[in-house]
């Protein structure tokens, strides 16, 4: 039974992927991509990776879908140009053959993987009690591979900065993204009024529960960001200008806390990002809390895009 389910799911994922590539319009392609992300999240559940499924559904399908839709609405025309640049039949057949070789090579590698599989699961589980977290994935993210997670946190800050620099000079420091009119009635207005109080509680809960169950700062931060975006799109919440000090602190709070705790490791433990066993849990909580805030702020700013209104006066 589960084999049939897996097979149907696999075929659906591949079918949606083909459709996303083949369909002519940009809009249906993006919708196809969102469906692809949600189906992929189901695949992750089938693989027993609920943490990854949450992240995939929230970020891969949800947040990516939103920024893609924003882009589709603004990219108009260009059909003749695109037709002129479309590769000819023989070129496409050649590309298809080469890509098929890559795919078959990967499939062959998957089929002939060595048995037994190497695994770090036992290793990862052994030291969890010392960290005070029960979710092995949070343990890996925060302790064993803490440096990767720190670098990723910094990537988010740099991504926000890079997006801001795409604004014209006169808009620097202005309000990010378009300003939406206030929706006083309709489904969007209702959702934006009813959902955020619930969503904010759920987001904080998901971030908090990440220590012991599937969840964590990225999943929780994404839910918080979604609530902010909902209120923003409905016109109920004005984004602060990018020159606002509080906004900038919110973006860097997580990485700063992470680096601060990392440096503290030199003093109270035996190196960068090392936690003393007695303080591991409170330090991890401090980082996770600050990171949840920063992830939410960075995601909202990435969805909003470069500053489009206000900004400094022309020189």
């Amino acid at each position, binding site marked *: 039974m589960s084999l049939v389910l897996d097979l149907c799911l*696999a075929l659906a994922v591949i079918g949606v*992927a083909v459709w996303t*590539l083949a369909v002519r319009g940009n809009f249906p392609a993006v919708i196809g991509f969102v469906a692809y992300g949600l189906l992929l999240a189901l695949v992750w559940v089938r*693989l027993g990776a609920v943490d*990854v499924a949450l992240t995939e559904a929230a970020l891969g399908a949800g947040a990516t879908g939103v920024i893609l839709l924003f882009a589709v609405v603004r990219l108009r025309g260009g059909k003749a140009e695109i037709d002129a640049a479309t590769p000819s039949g023989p070129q496409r057949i050649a590309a298809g053959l080469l890509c098929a070789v*890559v795919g078959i090579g*990967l*499939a062959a590698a*998957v089929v002939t993987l060595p048995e037994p599989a190497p695994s770090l*699961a036992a290793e990862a589980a052994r030291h969890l009690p010392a960290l005070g977290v029960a979710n092995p994935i949070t343990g890996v993210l925060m302790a064993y591979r803490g440096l990767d997670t720190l670098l990723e946190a910094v990537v988010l800050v740099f991504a926000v900065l890079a997006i801001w620099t795409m604004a014209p000079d006169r808009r620097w420091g202005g309000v990010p993204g378009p300003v939406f009119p206030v929706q006083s009635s309709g489904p969007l207005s209702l959702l934006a009024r009813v959902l955020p109080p619930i969503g904010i509680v759920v987001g904080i809960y998901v971030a908090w529960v990440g220590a012991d169950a599937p969840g964590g700062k990225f999943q929780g931060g994404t839910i918080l960001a979604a609530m902010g975006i909902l209120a923003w799109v409905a016109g109920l919440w004005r984004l602060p200008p990018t020159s606002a000090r509080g906004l900038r602190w919110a973006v860097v709070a997580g990485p700063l806390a992470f680096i601060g705790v990392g440096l503290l490791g030199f003093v109270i433990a035996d190196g960068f990002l090392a936690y003393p066993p007695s303080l591991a849990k409170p330090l991890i909580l401090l980082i996770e809390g600050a990171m949840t805030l920063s992830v939410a702020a960075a995601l909202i700013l990435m969805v909003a895009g470069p500053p489009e209104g206000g900004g400094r006066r022309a020189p």
Partner: protein
Amino acid sequence: MIFGLTGSALVALGLYGLVTQPALLRKILAFNLLGGGVFLLFGVMARRGAVVDPVPQALVITGLVVAFAATALALVLVLRLFQITGAATIAEDEAPP
């Protein structure tokens, strides 16, 4: 096993789209399809042992967040290119604006 083959197929499909689609927006979509396939392959590796290995899963979560940041930046670059030049592709034989 099924999902391993699915991941391989997604990588091939995404790569094909990345190479043959001329519009930049569609290239970004194809690149994300490819990324989904790579992550899936990684997840299948994590599933093979007796117990699920948390290390690849944690790295996939990191990867998803970075992929989103990269996609957001890529889309802003495409939009800016479109605003400045009106171009939706990076075809070489295009007349300079």
